[in-house]
């Protein structure tokens, strides 16, 4: 095994040469382009700054996008909800729109870090960390959200499953690109959602397991039209339990089907063991429990509880 100097020595500084405060997105993108990958986008800074201090991230410049116009709002356009790239966790939690139409995201954002972290940290930043257990990634993944990414080449829209690339990498290269917005369909009638989190303590800690689920039911037939189940960290990136979802689609609401979904999610999860955050075996067992609990709660909220 080889070890780096930074594994045993720490500094109190973040070692960047320039701090840039662009006024427009175009200006920001140009600044990034000029630095040719040696500059990093920073918004709330809650993820980037600690990484710089620990030398887990080394760049020459920071491009602070937090004052770019038009990216701090939460809006509804038709049945779509649009979350600006600069919306903080605290704003998300406080938004009536999100609480009513995407409760699972509000529940997830409420569990990020601490009040101070939620005041600065953004949902887009949480996504961009690529962390397989990020608290808002799972809700957005279950909501089938898509991300708009701006670069000097223009804008593109990436659906979340493709956004996450594993190993804390995402489709948005935060040394060249900016996430300008996140959009997803508002939840409506006959839809229900649930966010669950397992952790060693109740604040200031990453989760052992995070689950977000969204279900769409036919209340008359008592069947599940559609279901989305996102779990982390059970794979190198935020994970959709597709096998479990397939079992649920079109199936009648029943205890048995929920159990089967849990078992399927158990089988398709491949968590890693960690001496601090628990064994793979335990996390897999918890996947089963969480999928079951998440579905019960989401189905109840959708108006179609398991009898």
């Amino acid at each position, binding site marked *: 095994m080889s*070890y780096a*100097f930074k*594994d*045993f*020595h*720490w*500094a*109190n*500084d973040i*070692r960047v040469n320039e701090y840039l405060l662009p006024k427009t997105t175009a200006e920001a993108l140009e600044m990034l382009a000029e630095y040719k990958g040696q500059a990093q986008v920073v918004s709330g800074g809650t993820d980037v700054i600690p990484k710089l201090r*620990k030398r887990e991230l080394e760049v020459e410049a920071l491009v602070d996008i937090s004052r770019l116009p038009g990216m701090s709002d939460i809006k509804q356009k038709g049945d779509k909800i649009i979350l600006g790239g600069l919306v903080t966790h605290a704003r998300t939690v406080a938004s009536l729109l999100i609480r009513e139409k995407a409760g699972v995201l509000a529940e997830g954002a409420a569990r990020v870090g601490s009040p101070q972290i939620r005041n600065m940290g953004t949902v887009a930043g949480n996504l961009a960390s690529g962390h397989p257990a990020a608290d808002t990634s799972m809700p957005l993944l279950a909501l089938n959200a898509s991300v708009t990414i701006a670069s000097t080449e223009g804008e593109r829209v990436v659906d979340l499953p493709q956004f996450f690339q594993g190993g804390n990498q995402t489709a948005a290269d935060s040394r060249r690109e900016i996430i300008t917005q996140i959009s997803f369909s508002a939840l409506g009638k006959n839809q229900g959602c649930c966010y669950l989190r*397992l952790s*060693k*303590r*109740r*604040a*200031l*800690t*990453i989760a*052992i397991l995070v689950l977000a689920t969204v279900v769409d039911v036919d209340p008359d037939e008592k069947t599940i039209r559609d279901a989305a189940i996102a779990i982390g960290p059970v794979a190198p990136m935020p994970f959709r339990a597709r096998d479990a979802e397939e079992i649920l689609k079109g199936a009648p609401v029943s205890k048995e089907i929920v159990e089967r979904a849990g078992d399927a999610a158990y089988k398709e999860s491949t968590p890693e063991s*960690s*001496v*601090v955050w*628990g*064994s793979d075996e*335990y996390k897999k*067992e*918890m996947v089963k*429990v969480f999928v079951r*609990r998440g579905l019960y709660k989401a189905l109840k909220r959708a108006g179609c509880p398991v009898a």
Partner: protein
Amino acid sequence: MSTKTHDHKQIKTLTKDKPDLQGLIKTSQMSPSVVGKSIVRTDALSKVTGKLAFGADYSQEGFLHGKILRSPYPHAVIKSIDIEKAKNLSGVAAVLTAEDVPGRNGFGAIIPDQPVICGDKVRFVGDGVALVAAETEKIANQALELIKVEYDLLPPVFDPIEALKEDAPKVHEKGNLLSYNKLRKGDAEKGFAQADVIIERTYKVPFLDHAYLEPDICMAIPQVDGTMLVEGPMQAPFTVRRNINAVLGVPINRVQARQISMGGGFGGKEDSPIDLGCRAAVLAHHTRRPVRIALEREEVTLQTCKRHPMTMKIKIGAKKDGSLVAFEGVIYDEQGAYASLGPVIPPAGGSHIHAMIMMSGPYEIPNVKIDAYLCFTNNPYGGAMRGFGAPQVHVAHEQIIDELAEALGTTPFDIRRRNGLREGSATATGQVLDQSVGLHDTLESCAKAFDWEKKYQDTGYVNEEKTKRRGVGIGMGWYRTSIGTNNDACGANVYVHEDGTVLLSTGITEMGQGSFTVLPQICAEELGVRVEDVRVARPDTDAVPESGPTVGSRSTTLMGNAIILAARQVKKSILEMAAEMLMVPLTRLESRDRRIYDRDNPDTVLEFREAAARCMANGKRLIGQGWWAPPAPSLDPETGQGNPYFVYTYSTHMAEVNVDMETGEVEVTDYVAAFDVGKAINPKALEGQIEGGVAMGLGYALTEEVAIENGYIQNLSLRDYLIPTSLDVPDIKPIILEVENKFGPYGAKGIGEMPNLPATPAILNAIANACGGRVRDLPADPEKVYWAIKEAEIPLD
């Protein structure tokens, strides 16, 4: 091994043995006017305004910044070290290796076995192999990176039991067994023969980090006369001084150690200031400039001492009626890489000895046999942490007593009521407790406040889905006041000025526990002034009498007595002067609340300051020096029998928890903690000690563990070393009981460490009561509880 039995009657009881040490408590028939009051902390104002300066808040003007190059390997020989590039970096003032240490290249609280700079080999990940001082921290960091070290790896050992094997890699040349001690009371074998029920269990506890909020910092400032001044947060300035003087190769009087305000210590800042102090001093010695070493949080976790991990094997036997008859225990205490505070300090000091003495719990057991091994490994090193040696064994004895109760078909409450220590009981060391034994009072009052009877019946599922179960648990405990060593003593100086104000000068440090409030209270009470009239001098080895370290829950009791003795010397002059001035016989005078008056005729009165001024004007003594040592500790090295500590504090905790049966998550929902403290000098400050201690015990039970893989700590920062947050700690209801300690100031005994000891097992027992599974290898995090539930496979209602 010796099976010699020991007649405990040979050990004299302390109160009969040492009548001369009593009587410090009451000076007048009147109720105290300052002691026993919840006076606000003397430092609270400066803390709520942010004005109080901690180490990092001191000016850095003119300071060089010191940094330590650390070993990346747990066990290796240093083949070569190349410092040329680092030396040539602009702004670097010194790059030092082992040969640059001017005196002894070793420090340690007891045995100086830890190199200031490693020369031949490294023994843990984080061992210091070179020191750098530079104009800025950035340059110092760059310089560190330029040093090239070549290592030859040695096979490491990470387990204390493995370390004792013949062919285990040797951490130190003398071998891996640092200390072995034993305790033999009665005849364990015969005891077990009388038992109707015998159970055997093994319990394990991990390394724990103090996680004080203030990272360590130290400043070494060479003085013009050649003295080395070392400043920093430190619990033991005198120990720091005696290490630095040897490391610099100068006499003791050429080193001055000064304590500055401390952002928490919990025992950890007994060791770490020795480490940083020696290293900063060596850098300052070479550069002749002030040097500052400030650790980052991760470095604090990596480099400084931890609570010792232990593996504890126990066999316990009882009769059908629930009375305990025999106890047999083995302790494997992991010291880690260096001796630190671990080894024996005669007669009864040392990590494994403290653990051994307390291992069978606050219970009267006629036959006890314990063997305690303290072993070196290539892990980080163990030091003192709030209860030195005792939190570990509380985890063991309080759990096995519950497990035994279950096997006997009795209750956790009844088995404790039957066997708990009372006045007249003999402890495992044969010490007959002849005074201040309030254990049963704590048990009864805790049960009442907690509503134990009802809650114990009312367990089971708490929700409709039948996923959560409630349970309750008891943790009983005891803890010494003092450290059990022959040199355990305290000195205090009391200076009364001509305006009636007072300077109190002691070596006891303030780390948040409140000694700078409680000690002046005792001083003010004794002199008859107000607490605001007493200023506490900053502990400075140049200016205060030797007081030993601020550890072992000793400050209030030992120093309190020294202060009373010092104050009496001054008070004598003042009252003599007042007698003259008031023309009243000395024996009738009373000093209280800044006034001296005739007890028989209270209108005959004089201001305290008038008498003080007259003393000054007439050359009468206004300085007092008190010195107090507790009754001498004893412990026979062959039998482990004796009076190791002169008094104990007792406690009972009761916890209620909810356990999620499907995930293993635990929530502590109710908590009562009762203590016999002798006398509460400042009840509110005392409550604060209790509440904070319970929170720390909760962390030990549920979340905390320094996770080490092959010598590498996996959770160096506060985001993965998890202490309880405000959302994890329940409402805690403290109960304070006062069973007078005849050796204590106003009857007081120690409380600093005690509160965290019973908290951990109370919660563990509650978990077991709730879910049927028991975690014997801490911490009881959700995963461990989950597997314990699976393993238990108990049919639940």
